């Protein structure tokens, strides 16, 4: 049977303090007017429970912006593969970002498996946090079915009137609940309150796009020659912000960094972006996506078309980050709707 426990709101700060004693806790912290970031916390007061998606998604803990994958010694010609990890609890992960982590898991556990990612992922405890209402107008989580929890967490918090009801999803989650003895068993009233909340949510969260979830792939399959991409290409400044903040963009480059002794150094994996001009360039100088329009198209295809063939799932989570961060006002919802409109 599914297990639910309850934490009183007045015990929240105590909970975070105790959690931080077990291992490092990162959680959403307010950084500016409308900006939040996951960062280390030791107290509940530091956490912003009502936050819009953080600047960078929790991807940064699973697939760091830069990670060392090997150390080398040139003169001895020694290469040592290395793994970098940190035991960590991420508190307050929204359902859109839980979906993003699931997408990354699919990619990196696909054979040949990425051992660095897999070990690091297994060292991370995930505590989700439900959005009872929209964060802002840029989100399209309902269209992607990500406005409600679909697994991918150890514990999942939903805010009720006086308490948090917590879904215990794994043994690890259970262990935390036991260790931090602040939780009580959820009673029928709590469960009813959760049920009512979900019912209310189903009235708030409606498909934000003019396309049915199941029809999205079709729209993109037929849009390769769309004029919409030209419009996007004309606006795009190829900064790569959209891919950096995307919870499911995982493309990387591999580079060597020499130490000052000019003998030892590291091979590092760093985030890369398909929006960069030379991303698909080959040795002869030919680029398979020279135009910004084609690079934007590629980004969208990698969310709504290609991954469905490969992983049977859309790789857009509906978090809205690409729209929020875009300097050129390229809006995901507008793009999808324009493509759908054209297809009519």
């Amino acid at each position: 049977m599914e297990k639910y426990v309850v934490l009183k709101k007045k015990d929240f700060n105590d909970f975070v303090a105790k959690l931080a004693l077990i291992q490092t806790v990162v959680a959403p912290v307010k950084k500016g007017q409308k900006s939040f970031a996951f960062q280390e916390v030791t107290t509940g007061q530091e956490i912003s429970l009502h936050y819009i998606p953080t600047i960078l998604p929790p991807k940064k803990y699973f697939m760091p912006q830069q990670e060392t994958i090997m150390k080398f010694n040139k003169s001895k010609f020694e290469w040592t593969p290395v793994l970098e990890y940190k035991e960590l609890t991420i508190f307050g992960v929204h359902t859109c970002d839980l979906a993003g982590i699931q997408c990354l898991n699919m990619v990196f556990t696909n054979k040949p498996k990425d051992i660095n990612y897999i070990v690091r992922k297994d060292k991370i405890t995930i505590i989700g946090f439900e959005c009872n209402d929209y964060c802002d107008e840029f989100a399209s989580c309902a269209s992607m079915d990500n406005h409600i929890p679909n697994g991918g967490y150890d514990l999942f918090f939903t805010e009720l009137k006086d308490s948090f009801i917590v879904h215990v999803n794994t043994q690890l989650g259970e262990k935390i609940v036991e260790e931090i003895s602040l939780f009580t068993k959820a009673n029928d009233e709590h469960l009813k309150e959760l049920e009512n909340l979900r019912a209310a949510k189903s009235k708030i969260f409606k498909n934000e796009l003019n396309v049915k979830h199941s029809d999205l792939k079709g729209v993109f399959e037929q849009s390769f020659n769309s004029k919409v991409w030209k419009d996007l290409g004309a606006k795009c400044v190829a900064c790569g912000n959209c891919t950096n903040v995307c919870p499911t963009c995982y493309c990387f480059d591999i580079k060597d960094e020499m130490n000052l002794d000019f003998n030892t150094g590291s091979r590092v994996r760093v985030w890369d972006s398909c929006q960069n001009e030379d991303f698909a360039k080959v040795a002869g100088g030919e680029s398979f996506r020279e135009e910004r329009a084609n690079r934007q198209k590629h980004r969208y295809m990698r969310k709504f078309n290609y991954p469905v063939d490969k992983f049977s799932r859309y790789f857009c989570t509906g978090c809205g980050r690409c729209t929020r961060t875009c300097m050129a006002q390229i809006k995901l919802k507008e793009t999808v709707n324009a493509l759908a409109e054209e297809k009519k």
Partner: protein
Amino acid sequence: MIQVPLKESEYIVKKGTIIRAKKMTALEKFFEISLAGNEVLDHDPGQFVMISIPGIGEAPISVSSSPTTKRSSFELVVRNTGVLTGALHKLDVGDVIGIRGPFGHGFPTNILEGNDLMFVAGGLGIVPLRSLINFVIDNRRDYGKVNILLGCKSPKDMLFGDEVKQWEKRLDVNFQCTVDRSDPDWKGNVGLITSLIPGVNLDIARTFAIVVGPPIMYKFVIAELLKKNIPERQILLSLERHMKCGVGKCGHCQIGEHYCCQDGPVYSYDQIKGKHEAL
């Protein structure tokens, strides 16, 4: 962040020693590599390896030799076009480089068995195609008629001149060559490689065309092959992309839902026909 050594990783680099090196043209250099402990690379014709120089980086390079030629070493031809390849050109016999791989799907040598073959190599395409040509020649009995069409910019750009002469001499190989621009000593064909295709006498039903060349060449060569009614599934191509990881993750070589480094680099035309950004 805790850093620990790993026993296993897709990124482990093997030690390879350069046992032969030779400048071939102004831009291309030949390397024969032997893995530590005489380990066999165990590649298929058409596969590629990732070559490393510590501190410089890594790049994908096609294996040019056939696994039938030698077991304890393999050959590469590297054009000097970037940072890694530039650094490679400065290396010589005795120098050590890093090797990962082999990666990808090479040419389906078993499927080609018993069929007539038409090799179409443009420019540097001869480098990976040579691995299959020599494989076929070393197993000549297993294949039908063998046609080799070779094209290069000018006579001085021709790679493997001595080996090409051997192919030309063989009675069991129909060899033709053309250059885009002639020079005073050149007595052969002048013109694009597409000009050679119409003249080849083929049994269409049992002919496989294996095409490797610069991206621009494919469109034109495929059009000529289709004119000759060669079935789409019997046209094999090796696609060039800049792989960074070789293990289907980094995204650089993506063609639609395919990762060229894992699913390719060899595709049949019917697999990629109409696929966005493939050709």
